[in-house]
């Protein structure tokens, strides 16, 4: 059975939903404002005779006709980054300010990370973490190609992410010398001026069952199993909880996935709302979206999960997506 069929009761127009899921996605790029402006990027595409269509809802997103973005001069210069339209939502929801301390918990290969860096004007400290070392090299490659210089790349399990490398004392001791030696003349007892204790904002773009990417990669449906949904849900809960714990009171945590499964979306938020000091906050979705669901297959979720956005492929002709914004409480 096509796993997408389980979501028929959730969508307004089943036929349009299934039809959209079978159409391929256009090639979309985001303009990298660390290196150029949307106007110059468009001029560079014009100079080369590459056709494009602005996405309309965001100045920095362009749909290319035909050609893959990799074979253009603006791409070579790191002015453009291939990024699916809908995946630009979570970084906008994080809405970081220049100079902040921001965590991207599941960062590789880096589309959202580099978008966060651009929103921060490439200042402050952006931590791009991933548990997979191989994927980290893709993250680094992309970040450096785009000229990002405010990024620290870490390779930890996000579920028990330690801020110790950044000088946090929360696991005992300031600074992080790594070795046991006391040969250094730095005083290891004094807090470092540059030490950081908690994030201003965090993005958890969680590993998921990825049904929302079916238009890009139809194979995801063949690999889909309910067992996978359940196993990944456990990881999602752990990462979101850690993100809330590691973010300062009043700070923002955004949770996103590219799946329609309520088990991986609203259920994860409900769990976090019960276990951690946080609340759901409203935010505007620039793409057409519908609210999170409070009931699914006999389960009931926290009533506030309706503040989350579900983006379906037939609504904006994009991939599928889920995005929620939380505020950490004291």
């Amino acid at each position, binding site marked *: 059975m096509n796993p997408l069929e389980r979501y028929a009761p959730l969508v307004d127009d089943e036929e349009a939903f299934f039809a959209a899921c079978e159409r391929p996605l256009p090639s979309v790029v985001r303009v990298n404002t660390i*290196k150029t402006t949307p106007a*110059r990027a468009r*001029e*560079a595409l014009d*100079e*080369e005779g590459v056709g494009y269509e602005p996405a309309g809802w965001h100045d920095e997103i362009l749909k290319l006709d035909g050609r893959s973005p*990799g*074979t*253009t*001069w*603006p*791409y*070579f*210069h*790191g002015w453009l980054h291939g990024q699916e339209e809908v995946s630009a939502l979570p970084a906008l929801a994080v809405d970081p300010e220049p100079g902040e301390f921001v965590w991207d918990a599941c960062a590789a290969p880096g589309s959202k990370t580099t978008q966060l860096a651009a929103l921060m004007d*490439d*200042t*402050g*400290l952006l931590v791009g973490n991933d548990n997979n*070392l191989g994927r*980290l*090299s893709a993250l*680094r*490659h992309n*970040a*450096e*190609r785009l*000229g*990002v*210089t*405010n*990024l*620290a*790349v*870490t*390779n930890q399990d996000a579920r028990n992410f330690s801020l110790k*490398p*950044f*000088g946090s004392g929360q696991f005992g001791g300031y*600074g*992080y*010398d*790594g*070795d046991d*030696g006391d*040969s*250094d003349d*730095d005083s290891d007892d004094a807090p*470092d*001026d*540059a*030490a*950081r204790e908690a994030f201003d904002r965090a993005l958890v773009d969680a590993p998921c069952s990825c049904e929302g990417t079916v238009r890009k990669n139809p194979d995801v449906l063949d690999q889909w199993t309910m067992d996978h949904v359940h196993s990944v849900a456990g990881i999602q809960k752990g990462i979101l909880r850690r993100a809330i714990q590691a973010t300062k009171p009043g700070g923002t945590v955004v949770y996103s996935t590219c799946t329609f499964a309520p088990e991986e979306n609203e259920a994860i938020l409900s769990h976090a709302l019960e276990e951690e000091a946080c609340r759901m906050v409203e935010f505007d979705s620039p793409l057409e979206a519908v609210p999170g669901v409070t009931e699914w297959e006999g389960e009931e979720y926290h009533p506030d999960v309706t503040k989350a956005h579900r983006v379906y492929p037939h609504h904006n002709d994009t991939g599928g997506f889920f995005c929620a914004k939380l505020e950490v409480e004291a």
Partner: protein
Amino acid sequence: MSDGADGVDDEGSDAPTNSGQRFDRLPATDDEREVPGRATREEVVGWWEERFGIPPETFDGFTFWEKGKGKIWAFHGDTVDPIRIEGLGMSFLRTRQEHWKPTTNAVQRFGKKANRNVVELSGETAKRFAAGEDQEVEWDGDWGYLVVAHELVGEREPMGVGLYLYGELRSTVPKGRQESLPVLD
């Protein structure tokens, strides 16, 4: 991606050494240097100015770090020192060799302000440089590493690093960045 093999193990020695496992901040000046052979901030900023004419204030707000032998990273901000993580800012410059070599990404990011040792290519030669090809180019300036640029949307835009030797401009664009691009008029 580990540069671990380059690093000298900290254990068993009291002398400060370079490590492939962590990022150490560059000392500000010679006087503050503890690790032999480590470049200083003053030298790094001075090198970009001397070689390419890039104003030192371009790097205000940046800190410089070494991880692995001679591999210098530029980070736009500050953090604790040392720091054991996988990456910090941008891989920026190779020191501890006879001629220091900037990275392609650093030249793309900072090279726009260069006014010395910049070779400007156009048309087919720019295309060939981006594809990683070596070619004969007229150049009567210094030999060594050059900023290689071309004109894009009315402005000079750095493409990467060329090594000019014996009348030949070698492209050092890394394999993963090489691309077959159209010829621009």
